[in-house]
């Protein structure tokens, strides 16, 4: 079977499994093993042990349990709510204000973590319920979390950027700085979208009800104090990275310890709370890791069969104008996001595409940022996207995948437009690193 036919078969199997509503990770693994058995034989089963070791012994992925646990502790102890209560006290009269606070908090979480899963599941743990409880439109709430929590790979430190820089021999520092302006543009556009769409449709974000009895100064003081303390926790975690105390992965553990200390201070540390937080976190970790494992088995099989050669040969002799080549690369990566995870896209495409882009006269850092933006979009475009799955994992039971698909649409459009803007105006990406690093 040629690799093109095999890719088609695999794709058809994925769509069939999706239609059946099969568990994504187990289905991907099952499809790979079944198709692999038919085309390769029993020897293919040996892909399981190496993939298991790769997935479970990846220190980078350790951010997922640590940050999810921190998120669960924060939300169950009420510390997360305290943060949003305080922000509401200040800007509560602005329609959509809570969603705006969520965008900022998610961006800060994004600044801590370097991978997508940790950012989205932590943001979702903390911020989803407060929005839904206040009557926010669920699509807006889900979309905001996906859009903000996914920024982890665009706001430094970012693991995919480090991988890109290493695969293409470019400066990591330059990548990190180059990402700042596009990240800021995305945040501004997200906030603008929330403000405008809530203005146009008041049902999306109800204003906070004015309480029957106005809060006393003492109550206000407590709200402010609790909010400030929880904000400090975020700064402590960020600070532990910046001051060189912990790596971005380890900082999640600092966050857990901080959350426990804060809960003690708030007198909310009960054995039941710790137990339930641990249970929910373990469940989410397992769900995320079975998806990552199943998807890795699937993509490892596909790679062993040579899909990367198909992509490489496809990019040769395109006979297109330079900018069309760049656009073509973006399309290919968006399509690959359909079946392959963020790290593999970078590992596979960075060395194939970047030299071509450079030979056409484009700046590699600029191209790298386009690639990161692209991945950010690819992981949240239906039907297959890790960000979508993570969000579904964290969402309450009533929310279906269709809700999630619909919720991401406007935010994907925003990110696509930022991708297009950065493509048209390379200065937006290159100005800051050139200014800072010469």
């Amino acid at each position: 079977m040629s690799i093109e036919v095999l890719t088609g078969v695999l794709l058809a199997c994925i769509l069939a499994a999706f239609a059946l509503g099969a568990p994504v990770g187990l289905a991907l693994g099952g499809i790979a093993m079944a198709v692999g058995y038919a085309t390769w034989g029993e020897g293919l089963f040996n892909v399981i042990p190496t993939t298991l070791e790769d997935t479970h012994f990846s220190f980078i992925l350790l951010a997922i349990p640590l940050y999810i646990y921190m998120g669960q502790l924060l939300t169950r102890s009420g510390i997360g709510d305290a943060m949003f209560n305080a922000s509401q006290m200040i800007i509560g009269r602005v329609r959509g204000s809570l969603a705006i606070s969520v965008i900022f908090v998610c961006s800060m979480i994004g600044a801590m973590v370097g991978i997508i899963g940790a950012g989205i599941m932590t943001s979702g743990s903390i911020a989803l319920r407060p929005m839904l409880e206040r009557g926010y439109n669920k699509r807006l709430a889900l979309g905001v979390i996906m859009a903000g929590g996914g920024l982890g790979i665009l706001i430094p430190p970012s693991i995919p950027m480090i991988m890109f820089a290493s695969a293409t021999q470019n400066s990591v520092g330059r990548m990190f700085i180059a990402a700042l302006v596009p990240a800021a543009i995305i945040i501004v556009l997200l906030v603008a979208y929330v403000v405008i769409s809530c203005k146009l449709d008041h049902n999306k974000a109800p204003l906070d009800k004015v309480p029957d009895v106005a809060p006393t100064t003492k109550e206000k003081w407590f709200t402010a104090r609790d909010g400030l303390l929880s904000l400090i926790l975020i700064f402590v975690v960020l600070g532990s990275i910046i001051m060189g105390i912990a790596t971005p992965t380890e900082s999640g553990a600092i966050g857990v310890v901080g959350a426990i200390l804060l809960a003690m201070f708030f007198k909310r540390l009960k054995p039941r709370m710790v137990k339930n937080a641990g249970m929910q976190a373990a469940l989410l970790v397992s769900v995320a890791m079975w998806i990552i494992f199943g998807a890795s088995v699937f993509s490892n099989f596909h790679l062993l069969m040579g899909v990367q050669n198909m992509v490489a040969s496809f990019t040769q002799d395109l006979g297109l104008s330079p900018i069309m080549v760049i656009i073509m690369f973006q399309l290919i990566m968006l399509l690959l996001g359909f079946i392959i995870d963020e790290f593999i896209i970078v590992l596979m495409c960075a060395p194939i595409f970047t030299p071509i882009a450079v030979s056409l006269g484009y700046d590699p850092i600029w191209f790298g940022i386009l690639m990161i933006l692209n991945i950010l979009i690819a992981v949240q475009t239906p039907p297959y996207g890790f960000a979508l799955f993570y969000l579904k994992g964290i969402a309450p039971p009533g929310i279906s995948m269709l809700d999630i698909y619909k919720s991401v649409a406007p935010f994907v459009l925003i990110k696509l437009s930022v991708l297009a803007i950065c493509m048209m105006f390379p200065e937006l990406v290159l100005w800051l690193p050139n200014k800072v690093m010469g």
Partner: protein
Amino acid sequence: ADHNWRFANLYGRGTAYGEVYEGLAKNIEAMSDGRIKVQVLYSGEGVGTTGILGAVKTGLISMGAPFQSMHAGELPAGLVEIGLPGGTSDAAELTTLFQEKGWAPILKKAYGEQGLVWLDPYIQPAVYVITKKQINSIEDFNGLKIRAPGAYGKFLRNLGASPVSLAWSEIYTSLSTGVIDGSIGSNMIDHRDGNHVEVAKYMYPLPLAGAQVLPIVVNRNAWNKLSPDLQAIVSAATTVHAREQMTKSKLWESQAVAEMQAKGLQWSPAPSDADKAAWKQAGAGLWDEYSAADKYSKELIDVLRSEAN
């Protein structure tokens, strides 16, 4: 083709080393007149860096270029083979050690026990440590937190440093924020690719290992399916490959150093004789430990011992 092989290595597609392995694959195809077809798998393409040895063992891939430090838990003798800290960097001396002093048969047995065929090894350049602060004398290593796995970590601990375990993709950030004070790279090219010089400027002039010897391994069943002439062709191709690794590595190493120097890399001052002695001492201390851990390691180190006397 009569034989369809998959050949995995640790390097990225398009990297200089990746092309040398690509060259080996092409050579096998050409020399066998297309009877063996070799598909090269680069870093992350189906098998993870720590999975290469296991994947060749099971036959998931037919041939691999593993990096033995990653497999210290599966095949401890590989650590001695790659070169314990403080070992020689002299290529001729290493070749004698393998071909005449008896390392090759020991390793053939050690790998053979796990279903692997051990083919001619090749030599890759030295392992150096890069630090954020200048190292003026060996005492300056005291208390430094240095990312160094396995044997290199033990070696640096003997010098008073604190070895740290970190994921490769967190080295850059950790050097930049100060979680660690230094890091080893598997060679100068690794330091360059990891952009370490952006966040740490000083390279210590003494290498932790003067040279690294790495094997090409083949799955035994895949090997046994080859006719004797094809086996000879694959062996011959690996010999050509070993030579190419040697000449090109030297060139690339100097290029990597030049590129890093252009970005501000400096060498720490030349070590004193006392420093050199302490450095050698730190390495020699490891022999007993590794000897005791594994029978094949012991056999290899016994050869070293009889040489030293």
